[in-house]
Each structure stands twice: as C-alpha cells, then as structure tokens.
C-alpha cells in the first residue's frame, strides 16, 4: 500500500468514525455501531455508497428511519410500545462522547471488512461503497433488519456496491 493510499485511508477513517459517533449521539444511542457506520459512509463526499443505495430507490434518510422502526418493532416483541423509533423523545440527547474513541464490536468488524474489501479490489483506499458492502454482509443485526425492512436484498446491495466502485468517480 502506498503512502498516499495510507494517508487517504486515515482521512476517510477519521471522517467515518466522527460521523458515526455523531449519528449515534443524535439517535440517542450508545457507542456507534455498524448501522451508524453505514449512515456515515452515505454522508461521505465520495458518492459511491449513495449510488449503490439509489439502485433500490433508497436514501440515507430511509435507512435512518428504518433503523428506528427496527428498534420499535423489536420492543413490540416483548410487549413494549415506545413510539415510531423505539425510544422516548427526551429533548436532551445522549451524552457527547469524551475520552478515547468508543465503538461497538459491530462497527469494528464492519470497518475491518471494508478495509479488506478495499485491499482485495486494488482500490486506492477505502471508499463509501466498501463500507456499504461490508455492513450488508452479516445476516444478523440491526443493519440486516433495517435493510430487510426497506426491501433491500443484502446480496443485491453488495453487488450494487461493487458496480458503484467500478464506475468512474
């Protein structure tokens, strides 16, 4: 890997992790997870992730809404009705993180997989569509359930991400 690629990856990584943290904080969640990394990837200047998702006529806002609905539906399974996004509207959001960067295992696994995918296809660094493909792979978890709720086939999204990476920037 060239020095230029390493530096580009570090820059993307910083943007992704910061945006994932902000998504989690705004949603009133704890440390960011894979679903927040997906939303962060869809907000990158590189539009390859957004193009992959647009193949299914979906946007980041649709994903954000679906994540809330997944939580609300999961609560109904245990007999709890807590509004459309599965939490109370508190007026004051979750605490902004401080100290060392904290994230869930699902974010770490997804990011490592995105790095693997970027190395495998010889890209000049991690791109948004690598993250989209990485988070779409696991069969279980909040992201899988949100994609299912949106009627997006995970394998088809991985394919769309691959196609988006092949298109010129």
């Amino acid at each position, binding site marked *: 890997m060239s020095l230029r690629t390493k530096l580009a990856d570090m820059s993307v990584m910083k943007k992704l992790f910061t945006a994932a*943290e902000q998504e989690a*904080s705004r949603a009133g969640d704890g440390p960011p997870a894979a679903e927040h990394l997906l939303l962060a990837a869809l907000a990158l200047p590189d539009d390859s992730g957004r193009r992959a998702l647009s193949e299914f006529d979906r946007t980041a806002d649709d994903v954000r809404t679906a994540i809330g609905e997944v939580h609300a539906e999961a609560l109904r399974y245990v007999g709890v009705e807590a509004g459309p996004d599965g939490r109370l509207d508190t007026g004051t959001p979750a605490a902004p993180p401080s100290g060392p960067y904290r994230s869930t295992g699902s974010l770490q696994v997804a990011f490592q997989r995105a790095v693997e995918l970027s190395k495998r296809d010889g890209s000049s660094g991690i791109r948004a569509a690598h993250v989209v493909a990485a988070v779409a792979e696991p069969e279980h978890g909040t992201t899988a359930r949100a994609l299912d709720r949106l009627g997006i086939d995970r394998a088809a999204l991985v394919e769309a991400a691959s196609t988006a990476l092949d298109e010129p920037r």
Partner: protein
Amino acid sequence: MGDVQQVPPADRPAEAFAAVLALRRLAASLERAAVDHALAQGWTWGDIGAALGMTPQAAHKRLAPQRRKPLDE
C-alpha cells in the same frame, strides 16, 4: 403503570437479541428523560444517584443535561 406483559420465550434468538438491543436503547432514553423530570421537580444529584444505585458524582458525570449537548451544536 403500564399493563403487565409476559416476556416471550427466547426460542426465536433473532427477535430476542433485537429486543435486547432495543431495550438497552430504550432504557438509556428513559433514564435521560427521568433525570430531566427529576431535576425539574427539585431532585438533587444525590437523590438521582440513590435512585439509580450510583454516587451523586457518577450520576452527574453521566447524566447532567449540560453534558448532553448534540455534537453538531
């Protein structure tokens, strides 16, 4: 008081695990909302800490509203 609910059996792991995640998230938002109401009703951080089983300092450090500003403000 809400209606009493029978927790379903955990023999559908995917549903059960999703519920676990959603309950943790709901608990955190319920805790923040309750702190806001408690403060408005004159509770001290000592009262809030005692109710949550933590010290006043720990409760304040984790839950004080001024520590909960959105990152993008």
